[in-house]
């Protein structure tokens, strides 16, 4: 879920850039380090980024009949860890902006915060927590993906609510409005992504 170019006031854009920058820079330096240690990692990370981008363009069967797109950031976080995903997710967002005019450049900070930082951290946290609880592997993967997707959606709703508070009830009311609006598509999508993740996990363990 991307906030389009032009939809956030300038101050908000700047603030979200400032909020995202430390994570993305930290991730970028982790990426530089791992690719110096092992040049094969460059190819792997590029492939992971390309896969995420292509995945976001694959159509999934969905309950509502409209097609839906998985985000894949939860999967990336489980595979590469959240710091690397902060960089890689941002790179995917740049590609989506440049190749699809999807999202934007001034809203990149805000989108990176929701999709490349909070989503992956929530996904990774869920995965680690469930692992610590010795839950089955499929549950770890499914919940990590679904919750990463949901967290992204929640953060995006909050970002819009901060920018455009409700005239009567302020931030809380706006959050409820945006949350309810996007819930229609995003909640089934998050569940679908979780289920898909479980199925892909099953496919890969059989293959």
């Amino acid at each position: 879920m991307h906030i389009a170019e032009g939809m956030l006031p300038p101050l908000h854009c700047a603030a979200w850039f400032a909020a995202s920058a430390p994570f993305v820079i930290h991730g970028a330096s982790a990426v530089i380090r791992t690719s110096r240690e092992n040049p094969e990692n460059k190819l792997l990370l590029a492939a992971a980024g390309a896969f995420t981008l292509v995945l976001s363009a694959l159509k999934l069967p969905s309950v509502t009949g409209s097609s839906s797109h998985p985000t894949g950031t939860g999967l990336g976080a489980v595979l590469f860890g959240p710091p690397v995903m902060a960089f890689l997710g941002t790179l995917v967002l740049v590609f989506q902006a440049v190749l699809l005019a999807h999202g934007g450049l001034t809203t990149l900070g805000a989108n990176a915060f929701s999709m490349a930082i909070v989503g992956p951290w929530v996904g990774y946290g869920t995965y680690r927590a469930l692992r610590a609880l010795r839950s089955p592997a499929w549950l770890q993967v499914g919940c990590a993906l679904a919750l990463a997707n949901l967290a992204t959606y929640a953060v995006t709703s909050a970002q819009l609510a901060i920018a455009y508070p409700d005239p009567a009830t302020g931030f809380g009311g706006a959050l409820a409005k945006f949350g309810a609006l996007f819930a229609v598509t995003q909640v089934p999508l998050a569940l679908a992504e979780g289920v898909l993740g479980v199925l892909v996990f099953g496919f890969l363990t059989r293959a």
Partner: protein
Amino acid sequence: MARVAAVDDAAWESPWRQRPVGTRVFLSFALVLAALLMPAWPGCALVAGGSLGLMLGPARIRASLVAVVTVPPIAFIAVGVLPLAVQVGGTPFLSLAPDGGARALGVLAHGVAGTLALLLLVTTTTMVDLLAWCRRLGVPAPLVEIAALMYRLVFVLLSTAVAVQRAQQARLVADAPLPQRMRFAAAAVGTTLLRTWDRASRLQRGLELRGYEEDLPTLPRVVA
């Protein structure tokens, strides 16, 4: 998915490719800033009109392409601004906000103008040129190289993903019940993932044969 290729194709064929990337980035960014900072009327209308005019005029972008790539984000913006028109709390719980319509339309205008300004950049500038520009601005080489490899792999994988989906359709995947379809979608995603890995390791070995150790130096593009 065809949209990936559409924007990219336009950028490769853009008559503006010969102009310095920095100029294009500056122009587009100035328009985006104008869209953000100026009042919706007449500022955003001017930005939107200006971006459209530049795209359809000197940049010679086909109108059908502009339509194809702008409709989805604009539809998303249009839905996204709906909450601005209403307010919650009080009685009735949900009601039209005072000036709500104007507020929603204003944000819509900012969004549409911003998206068109961004589109001006991306339909005239290839990813490759942007990456080379980033490199000159001092972005570390490994990061630029990963982005460049990613760009190449996107197109390799795209044809795979499209072919896998087509092959499933040919064998009547649409007739399967939903749980089955989810399973087949997972198989398509899993297959694409395995092939992604395979592609990456094969490219690694292929590049090693060409002498790849740590860096992937290439000539900068010649601006004629």
